[in-house]
């Protein structure tokens, strides 16, 4: 899949949560580690539900974890 327009700070947040591994995060939100990798690399945009679950793990709001790179409308 191509890069999505949604950036995220998951790597940064994992680092500041006792260097949580991708697998630990995946286990906590009910996803596979490959999906966490794809989200971090902005190759996959998660569903709203998964985004909320990720944000809850870090005790953040969704918009603190995910940012939308809005392209200017021509």
């Amino acid at each position: 899949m191509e890069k999505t327009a949604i950036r995220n700070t998951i790597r940064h947040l994992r680092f500041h949560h006792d260097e949580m591994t991708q697998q630990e995060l995946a286990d906590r939100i009910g996803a596979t580690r490959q999906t966490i990798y794809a989200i971090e690399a902005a190759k996959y945009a998660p569903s709203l539900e998964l985004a909320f679950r990720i944000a809850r793990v870090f005790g953040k709001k969704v918009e603190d974890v995910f940012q939308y790179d809005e392209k200017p409308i021509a």
Partner: protein
Amino acid sequence: MQDSYSPLPLTPMSRQEVYAWSSTLSSIVFALVYLLFVFGIPSLFEPIRENFIQAVVILVIVDVVFQTIISIQSSQGGRVDRDERDVRIAAIGFKIGYYVFMVAVLILIGHLFVYGFINSLADPVYVGRMDAMIVHYLVAVFFVGTTAKSVAQVVLYRKDA
């Protein structure tokens, strides 16, 4: 536990990706065996033609054993083996497989129509003798669609990896 903090693509395949790979390989092997059986050069592929049923049974057994081993190994980890990304990739794979299948069916129908029409002009009872080949063509089209679906899934998984 493997340290997955690194941004490097440390991506051993997920169970669903392994399934996609095994599905691709098995559909290609099935297609080859079948097509060699039906359309192969008789002298060159005589062993396959003679043992077609045995070859198919062996392939099915190998496929089932392989899938079972993967399933057992995955369940031992107690982890999620299928999530929304797998569902999305499967859906895209089915969509692409469906498009390829429909195109192949349309080509087949066109081919049969033109071929049958031309031959029926010369031989009015020709159409009645086409049944066996139509079945083989339809099986070939089925394999084309199945292979396209699983190849599309593998490509999507590898793009993310």
